[in-house]
């Protein structure tokens, strides 16, 4: 009877999770979908609490309370600009939990688990361990604790491959010859090290792919936990998470016209790839704020193109205010969002939504590109590679073939930039040297705030 009740709660949870994710196909249905998923989660937890193997509730309840407090604190106080870091951290937590459950299962049986369970358990612990350290390093890079540039050394890929091969070798040995606890912990240690080494050579500009990939690993680690514990809802939820991350990785790679292998092992943004871009000739034309304000005030259509620079400058609210001011004057304002703008999938959309930009004004790459020839001013805010015309025009460029937002087809382009330095990929951007382009240096938020006043006076 009890078993039926538990399994029924899991079945209900599985159905509600799928309905919840289905709701995410539209912003209007998304909230209701999430409430369904939340209810499903609650049912599954209540169902589990009556599990016959549970003897003491002290640790369970204290764990639930502590976790809820941390979760609530993070949920309510993490600013939207820090969403990539938070997500990286939660991948680490999820993967760590999976790894711990796996280690506990192995330990309590003294390493004597049958071959099938061991296969699942090995996957669970290896994926869990490498995702934990990999996500923590991604977190450190996103938070600025570690430099965002790729760290490479000679023979790196060979060393990493050798390490991975050793880890898998131990895994296979443990399946065939069960019972060695020390060897198991060596495997865990190697997987932890591999996670760090995997993310070390990846630059900040490739973070959207890495985030998606770690998302996928964390999900698959949960799914493997489901195989070990023979728990169907865990398999379903973990697989949904794993595949979601996998699909996002593919979408992100496509948006950069690169393969996953290239992202993982290419060390994009290091000195060598930057040199391949070649030096650019010409001068950047600096323009005055007042000139731009006048152009904007008398434009018919203005398109804002945000990038990671908008997030670091916390300029999304200033962008919205400027847009409001322009809309009051009858200017049509749109936003062009590149899939890999920012540090995680959908990063820019969330920031602009936070600043009250209606989502009907947010345009995807394919939708906004045909609009640029009819656009009077395109305002690039802290974006660089996603508007680099070299991707389209120069087959020799390291980012050749990457779909870009074609701002250079607009009648006039303004680039808001912190300084004259290069973007994260280290590539020169020919857009900055074009005749239509004017540069405005300085903090984006500050520039935009002054721009609002200037437009009002125009």
């Amino acid at each position, binding site marked *: 009877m009890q078993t039926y009740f538990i399994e029924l709660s899991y079945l209900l949870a599985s159905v509600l999770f*799928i309905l*919840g*994710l289905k709701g*995410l*196909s*539209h*912003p209007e249905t*998304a909230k209701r979908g*999430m409430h369904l*998923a939340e209810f499903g989660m609650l049912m599954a*937890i209540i169902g589990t609490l009556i*599990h016959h*193997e549970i003897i003491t509730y002290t*640790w*369970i309840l204290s*764990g639930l309370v502590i*976790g809820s407090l*941390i*979760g609530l604190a*993070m*949920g309510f106080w993490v600013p*939207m600009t820090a969403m990539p870091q*938070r997500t990286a951290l*939660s991948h680490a*937590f*999820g993967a760590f*939990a999976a790894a*711990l*459950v796996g*280690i*506990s299962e192995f*330990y309590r049986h003294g390493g004597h688990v*049958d071959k*099938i*369970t061991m296969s*699942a358990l090995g996957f669970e612990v290896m994926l869990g361990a490498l995702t934990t350290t990999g996500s923590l390093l991604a977190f450190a890079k996103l938070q600025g604790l570690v430099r965002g540039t790729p760290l490479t050394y000679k023979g790196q890929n060979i060393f990493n491959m050798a390490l991975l091969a050793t880890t898998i070798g131990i895994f296979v040995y443990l399946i065939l010859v069960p019972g060695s606890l020390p060897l198991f912990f060596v495997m865990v240690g190697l997987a932890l090290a591999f996670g760090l080494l995997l993310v070390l050579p990846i630059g900040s500009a490739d973070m959207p792919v890495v*985030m998606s990939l770690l*998302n996928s690993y964390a999900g698959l680690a949960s799914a493997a936990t489901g*195989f070990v*514990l023979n*728990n*169907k*809802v*865990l*398999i379903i*939820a*973990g697989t*949904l998470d794993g595949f*979601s991350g996998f699909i996002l990785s593919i979408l992100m790679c496509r948006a950069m016209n690169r393969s996953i292998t290239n992202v993982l092992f290419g060390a994009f943004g290091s000195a060598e790839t930057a040199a391949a871009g070649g030096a650019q000739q010409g001068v950047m034309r600096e323009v005055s704020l007042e000139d731009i304000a006048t152009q904007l005030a008398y434009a018919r259509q203005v398109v804002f193109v945000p990038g990671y620079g908008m997030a670091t400058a916390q300029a999304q609210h200033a962008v919205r205010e400027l847009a409001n001011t322009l*809309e009051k004057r009858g200017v049509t304002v749109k936003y062009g969002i590149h*899939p890999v703008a920012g540090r*995680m*999938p*959908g990063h820019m*959309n*969330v920031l602009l*939504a936070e600043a*009250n930009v*209606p989502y*009907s004004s947010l345009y995807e790459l394919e939708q906004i590109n045909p609009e640029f020839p009819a656009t009077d001013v395109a305002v690039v805010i802290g974006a660089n590679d996603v508007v680099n015309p070299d991707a389209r025009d120069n087959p020799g460029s390291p980012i050749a073939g990457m779909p870009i937002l074609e701002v250079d087809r607009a009648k006039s382009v303004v680039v808001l930039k912190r300084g004259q330095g290069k973007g994260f990929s280290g590539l020169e951007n020919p857009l900055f040297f074009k005749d239509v382009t004017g540069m405005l240096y300085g903090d984006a938020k500050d520039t935009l705030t002054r721009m609002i006043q200037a437009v009002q006076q125009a």
Partner: protein
Amino acid sequence: MSPDTLITALYVFALAAFLGYLVISRVPPLLHTPLMSATNAISGISLVGSIVTAGANYNTVSTILGFTAVVCSTTNVVGGFVITDRMLRMFKRKPSPKQEEQIGHG
């Protein structure tokens, strides 16, 4: 684990993967960040495994590991859902009536 159990589990995995592919390909790029935090919260369901590990009194090590896993998973479940809700509440179709009024008078 018996081969039968494994095969049932593989069926569940394959069907979930297929369903996941269909459902998730329909999520627009607009909602990719909420999608990531939502799937993250959902896969926090590994909490149910952690709960049993923490409460079954297998041995001290397992209890400690289980307890830590419960903390991590609960953080993900609660934090993930709270943040997803917070994000989704921000997505609005049109400016609120107040703002439209301002535009009208401008």
